[in-house]
């Protein structure tokens, strides 16, 4: 079919004017930044719910119970899930940070694009009962799908523009940022609230465990001796605005490049040549109008699985003559799945904006084949362009480039 969309492509730049995060490193962007600077790890013991793996495997948990979150956010509805609450928490911080007025948030020109992979499936027992109809409907009956999280936040904020939810597994919220930029560049929105969230769940714990990729110890990304990933929970949201509307506002960064490619190899692992990761990185750099050597820092996907870190290293070596400084903040936050792309974008932007790199934790020895060594100490430095990588199940690879304004 032919498409004659109503949109008009514009050369508008897209700026980040607000950020919000809640993770195992803290409840605000500033708390997260402090933890990153001080090399604090959020990886520890699972306390918020019972699982056979609670005392056995480490997890990066938001140390705030679901009831406390509800109280803090003044939400009384019984059917709201932890995933939705974390998302709202981060969203409100991002909106406050950007200084958008209520009228601007509720304008038809404001879009909301969210990502998550687990939705309301954090409620294992309730979902089991509802899906198998063992009892009457639980209060969470309409809150299991991924869309429910965005719909909840959208209704809380009274969003009237385009709204969407994207799920490309672990790269979901990187794609949300890309989609948001494209809405602005196509003239379909003036500003977009973008981000991702996931809460820890028996579902993902058992899923990743069945694949034998959960580390029994705090994870060691890019280390020769890495033993797998740790799961974490977080929410991160960013406010994207069209250049012309930003005026005198504080701007954290320009989203200068983005790309999405598929590795087309295997449902749950990357090809040895890393074609997907290579393609997403090089295309994002090209969209930004840059050369690979202009990238000053990469926040790598770096899950600490055998497969990801080897393949990502190979793709980086293939693309860069000299591999730039890099680190995996998953050594602080664990793998936050649907939140990871947005959370690590916030961290990359903090590095860019403040001119600082955070220590990659617990690194001991480089992967013998590739020899790549991440940033090990906190340091001040000048950065112009940074990249964030997110790769997911299903071969879904995405890269984003942020540039200093």
């Amino acid at each position, binding site marked *: 079919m032919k498409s004659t969309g109503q*949109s008009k492509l514009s050369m508008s730049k897209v700026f980040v004017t607000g950020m919000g995060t809640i993770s195992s490193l803290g409840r605000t962007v500033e708390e997260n930044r402090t933890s990153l600077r001080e090399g604090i790890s959020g990886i520890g013991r699972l306390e918020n719910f019972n699982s056979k793996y609670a005392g056995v495997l480490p997890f990066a948990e938001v140390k705030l119970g679901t009831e406390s979150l509800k109280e803090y956010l003044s939400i009384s509805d019984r059917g709201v899930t932890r995933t939705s609450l974390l998302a709202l928490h981060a969203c409100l911080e991002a909106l406050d940070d950007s200084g958008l007025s209520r009228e601007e948030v509720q304008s038809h020109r404001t879009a909301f694009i969210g990502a998550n992979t687990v939705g309301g499936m954090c409620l294992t027992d309730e979902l089991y009962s509802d899906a198998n109809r063992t009892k009457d409907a639980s209060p969470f009956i309409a809150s299991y799908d991924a869309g429910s999280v965005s719909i909840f936040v959208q209704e809380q904020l009274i969003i009237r523009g385009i709204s969407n939810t994207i799920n490309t597994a672990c790269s979901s919220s990187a794609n949300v940022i890309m989609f948001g930029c494209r809405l602005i560049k196509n003239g379909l929105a003036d500003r977009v609230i973008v981000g991702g969230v996931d809460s820890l769940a028996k579902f993902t714990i058992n899923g990743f465990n069945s694949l034998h990729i959960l580390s029994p110890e705090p994870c060691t990304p890019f280390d020769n001796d890495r033993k797998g990933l740790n799961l974490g929970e977080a929410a991160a949201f960013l406010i994207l605005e069209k250049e012309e509307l930003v005026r005198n506002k504080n701007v954290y960064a320009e989203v200068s490049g983005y790309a999405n490619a598929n590795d087309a190899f295997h449902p749950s692992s990357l090809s040895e040549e890393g074609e997907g990761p290579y393609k997403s990185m090089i295309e994002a750099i090209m969209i930004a109008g840059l050369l690979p050597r202009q990238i000053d820092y990469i926040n790598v996907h770096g899950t600490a699985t055998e497969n990801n870190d080897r393949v990502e290293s190979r793709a980086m070596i293939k693309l860069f003559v000299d591999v730039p400084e890099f680190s995996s903040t998953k050594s602080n936050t664990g793998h936050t799945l649907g939140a990871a792309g947005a959370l690590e974008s916030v961290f990359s932007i903090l590095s860019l904006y403040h001119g600082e790199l955070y220590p990659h934790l617990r690194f001991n020895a480089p992967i013998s084949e590739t020899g790549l060594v991440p940033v090990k100490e906190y340091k001040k430095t000048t950065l112009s362009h940074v990249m964030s990588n997110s790769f997911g199940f299903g071969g879904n690879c995405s890269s984003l480039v942020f540039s200093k304004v």
Partner: protein
Amino acid sequence: MSCISPQQTFGEINLEELKVSSGNMLHAIEPSYKGIPPGQLRRMGKAVRLGVGAALPLMDEAAELDGIIIGTANGGMEDCIKFLNQIIEYDEGTLTPTNFVQSTSNAIAAQIAFMNSNKGYNITHVHRGLSFENALLDALMHSMEHPEKKYLLGGLDEISNYNFNIDFLIGCFKKEFTANDNLYGHDSDGTIAGEGAAMFIISGDSSNALAAVRSIKTLHSWDPDDIRKGLNDFLQEADINIDKIDLLISGENGDKRYTKYSNIVEENISYTIPVIRYKHAVGEFPSATAIAVWLAVHFLNSGRVPGHMQKNGKVEKLPDSILIYNCYQGLQHSFILIQRAG
């Protein structure tokens, strides 16, 4: 384009003869899936099977696709609950990962990419009743950004017992037995469940196009007045005069709580325009609009609109401009305008 649904829409198309349901669920007529290796087919969940099956005929047509864009609200739901059941029944013991890997909604777009070694743009939109609409919007943006490129666009959802149970408990479906040939005669809450997959090749290049997707708009509101305003805004944005629309495909689904929305659209278009209904033929599911788009393109090209789909006003002339209106659960609304290509 290609479509697997509870009606004869795949291969030899026959819409005239309505397949009558035997209960409140309309299951897709699944083809024999020639072209999928049997070993792979056995391992696929139903959503993946429907999606890959509908995409296959198009993969032959378009050797070099630049991306795969899918909308699905429940894709992978069956595997998801199967895995969840394992967690509960084996008390978090040693579990097999197959259901977990297939439980993510992006498994369909991923599987199509693997089977065709497609390394291009690959995405899955999951915004419940606007999943397909967002996928279509994504495809339209791509066709503006890269008019020379071709994208596979699809919308699909499966009925699994699990999502049927959940949606039943929410109140989506009728409690009384309802045959699909009398769906609109039931003055009660709820509708009947359906499933299906429709796939399209979308490009900014109009040569050999079957139809043109002129415009799309989505709304989130319970207020019927917003739908009235939304329709007017949509027509303005699409730059089309209301009298130019000569067919309305309405998402009316027999749920008496929501007929007020489709009535508003009908009243505001014109009483003389033929109204087509299709939910009795394919049932209700979050990405059913994909089927409506397939029907619109089919009507434009075949000129034939089956009698059982005509609500009022006989379709006497070949349509040029078709408006599709959908309302999912009273909250998520969409308008899509499809026109004759050229």
